[in-house]
């Protein structure tokens, strides 16, 4: 049994309109030190297998094919026991 934590973020050179709106709201609230806000996605997947290498290989494919869109997003993950 493994648990994967997947983080999908907007690529650095791609504008994040939601992040910009949140940043503006934070400034309105008085948090003037906030320089930049980027909004991403966090996903948790559990694997019912004992084969860690297999799980990791599959996770890599899942990120490439579905969980992230490589045109506009980056991804990284952690696999835990």
């Amino acid at each position, binding site marked *: 049994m493994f648990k994967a934590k997947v983080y999908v973020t907007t690529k650095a050179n*791609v*504008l994040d*309109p*939601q992040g910009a*709106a949140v940043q503006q709201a934070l400034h309105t609230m008085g948090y003037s030190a906030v320089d930049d806000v980027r909004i991403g*996605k966090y996903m948790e997947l559990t694997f019912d297998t004992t084969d860690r290498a297999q799980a990791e290989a599959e996770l890599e494919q899942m990120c490439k094919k*579905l*969980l992230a*869109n490589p*045109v*506009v997003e980056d991804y990284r993950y952690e696999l835990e026991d």
Partner: protein
Amino acid sequence: MKVAVLVFPGSNCDWDCVHAAEQTIEGAVVDRVWHTTDTLEGYDLIMIPGGFSYGDYLRSGAIARFAPVMQAVAKAAAEGVYVLGICNGFQILTEAGLLPGALRRNTGLKFRCHSSQLHVANADTAFTSGYAAGEVIDIPIAHGEGNYYCEDAVLEQLKARNQIVFTYTDNPNGSVADIAGVINEQGNVLGMMPHPERAVNSLLRNEDGIRLFTSIMKAWRERHAIVG
């Protein structure tokens, strides 16, 4: 000419597409095709309508691209069948890799639903031969995620190969280079955010979308040497 209008759970412009094809394409036989279908043999035009698909969870079109019918669309596209993706259909085509780029949240964050003026940037395609190059037409938009993005190198390629078909005269969503619609390199797959199927009837006071459909009919007839 046989036309397939794909239907995903959440599609809501499918009937508009059916009516538009029936009203504008002489002798068209139009079927609504459910997303679980795995063959599209015999169709001359495949339309992927607007609305939503599978709740657009994760990203718009991300899950729809793995529907059985999308394998059939990829196969048909490779064989040269005309494919027209409108709004959510455009998002699905980019997710499926049948068109370059991606569609992101509008820069203003608002869902934009109003008429929009488009430049016909390329009138030399199977979808736009009925328009004049540079002509400005009025086609409505209705989307929250129509902000077209692609890397600079891809944009240069699109320009060099004349793949940008429609651009906004007044960019409503932050799209790079004001892009409203792009075509694939082979020229048989077009994706666009504006809705031509909502602009085909004088009762709705907008007929600017008609020529998009009649252009496809003309291209199909020429391909099959049908005169008239």
